[in-house]
């Protein structure tokens, strides 16, 4: 990917406030797939309002890490506490956390049999038991914000990739999540569309949303993130502020990775 800033707008840094309150606390978390040790002794604390970018080579466990945070994957050792609730096998806690944590996938995963609007109102109506009117009003509000309200009655299959990803973001926002997870939200998109999606993500950052993004968009990392985490072979190798991370990487593996990714 590239370092050329895909964002040609000023970011209002004053809005990017980080509070002392802890949103996610991961301590000595380990995960195995059978014999394969995917995540090793991961410890990570995320404060409310932080924007964290996770990068690393393919297969390093980035997706697995963020999927553990909303329990799409189960960890075997250590603890994960989200919003003060510890993730255990208790289904009640999991459903609670999932409705607090929004997630966007690389391949959008919109529901193709439902219109854009129904995609957005489904969870509020069925999980939160909101009346249809209220859910639709909020859905339209968020679709407006991701600039796609005019497509509300179309089906996902009739939209471009960038539009679909923006709908996916709106769909997550409709649950009023306090934390958003992004797993390579732009890597299935053309450059034009990457920009429109990143734009929406910057907007989101400016509202003070806590965000963890797996992405190789280094321009986004530089301008929006307050911390960049580098992972390799299931471990967090290095984490730092973007300026430091890109200009003065500490470990050799980070240097190698950055040289590869930035030389494109």
């Amino acid at each position, binding site marked *: 990917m590239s370092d050329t800033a895909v964002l040609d707008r000023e970011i209002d840094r004053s809005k990017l406030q980080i509070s002392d309150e802890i949103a996610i606390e991961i301590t000595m978390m380990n995960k195995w797939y059978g014999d394969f040790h995917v995540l090793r002794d991961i410890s990570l604390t995320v404060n409310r309002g932080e924007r964290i970018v996770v990068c690393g080579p393919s297969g390093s466990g980035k997706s697995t890490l963020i999927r553990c945070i*909303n329990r799409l994957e189960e960890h075997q050792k250590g603890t994960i506490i989200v919003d003060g609730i510890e993730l255990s096998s208790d289904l009640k806690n999991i459903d609670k956390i999932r409705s607090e944590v929004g997630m966007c996938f690389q391949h959008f995963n919109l*529901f193709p049999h439902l219109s854009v609007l129904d995609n957005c109102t489904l969870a509020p109506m*069925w999980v939160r038991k909101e009346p249809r009117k209220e859910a639709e009003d909020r859905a339209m509000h968020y679709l407006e914000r991701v600039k796609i309200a005019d497509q509300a009655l179309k089906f996902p299959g009739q939209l471009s990739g960038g539009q679909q990803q923006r709908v996916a973001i709106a769909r997550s926002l409709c649950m009023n999540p306090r934390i958003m997870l992004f797993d390579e939200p732009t890597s299935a998109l053309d450059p034009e569309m990457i920009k429109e999606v990143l734009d929406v993500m910057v907007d989101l950052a400016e509202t003070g949303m806590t965000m963890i993004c797996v992405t190789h968009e280094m321009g986004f990392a530089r301008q929006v993130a307050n911390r960049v985490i580098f992972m390799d072979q299931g471990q967090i190798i290095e984490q730092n502020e973007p300026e430091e991370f890109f200009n003065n990487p500490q470990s050799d593996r980070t240097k190698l990775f950055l040289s590869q990714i930035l030389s494109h």
Partner: protein
Amino acid sequence: MSNRHEPFVASGDIQPSPPPSSVVGPIAWVRENLFSGVANTVMTLIGIYVIYSLLASLVPWLLLNSVWNASSLQDCRSIDNGACLAVIRERYLQFIYGFYPTEERWRPVVAFVLMLVALWPVLFAGAPRKLLYASALYPATAYWLIWGGTIWGPLAVMAGPIVGIILYRVFDKVLSGMMDEGIAGILSMAGALLLTITWWLFAVVQVDAILGSILNIGLEPVASDKIGGFLLSMIIGVSGIAGSFPLGIALALGRQSNLIFIKALCTGFIEFIRGVPLITLLFVASVLLQYFLPPGTTFDLILRVVIMVTLFAAAYMAEVIRGGLAALPKGQYEAADALGLDYWKSMRLIVLPQALKISIPGIVNTFIGLFKDTTLVIVIGMLDPVGILGPIRADQNWNGIVWELYGFIAIFFFVFCFGMSRYSLYLERKLQTGHR
């Protein structure tokens, strides 16, 4: 002299003139689709010849030289050499009703018309949704119309699911406080189902008898062995289809379940039923089943056959639907999970609508197969349309007649199967929501 021309100004929109008939219209269509090249032309001519020869022998036989008025086959042959349709004319009521009492035959007709009404909201989205509640009452109503008896039996049957749903709610409330919600849901569903079935098996007959002795309102009872012909095919076919669909869904979901016991149960059931010929199951229904039931319970033969046919079709249905479930991208399950939908909601709102849509061709295939398989009940002595043939052909007057009778039955089955096939195409088109 001024020789000014008035400028031409059109006083209204001029309609475009129609394209020449060499581009559109029937002639152009024929030229483009039937005679566009040498190969195409040859194929068209061969096709026309084949159709011509078929019609050349069929039309005289069926239409021009057929005999409608005759009292026996010899009669027919002496009048003309075409089809002897007089046999249909004489016996069609038997083909439709079997030996159903003549003066009660309005009842199956009413049941059939009500069936169309009940199917309307199920099959077409345009119908008022409220009608679905009325549709839910249809099975017991139809049962009462066809078999007759007091009104209490059907009412007691209808009370079963209502009580079942209430029990489920209560169980679910109580149990979900004590354990994991998913397991509580399954346990209470199993409990409610079991109690409902128990109610049907043991209590309904007693309730019917007691209330019937107090207040005997109802219809003249008709015994099962009087029911035959297309009526029997429809009873078995329609109940089998209506029953195997939900059961198939449940089995398919059960087979994918994380709960080992449920998974093993469903897999075992599917593999067993699929591994056994339907005829075997029908024999079990007609002979063996009585041994397994508690003594004293009388269990109607048609009902037993319906149950067997339903179970048989459900096993196939489950595998067809499992194919649809497997075809669904994993991302759909994950997106539903990530939004906080629980298992039942994600199945109902996200997974099943898509999986069933993918499976429509296979599902309808199973339905059509089931409907035609109803003719197998002849082996246990039931008089479905093919069974009705026996007595007719044994009749002195009609001895030796074949084509006309089988053709009549074939047309009946074709109309229904073709109807189902067209419906499935309509449904697929309607559910089309753009490429993904």
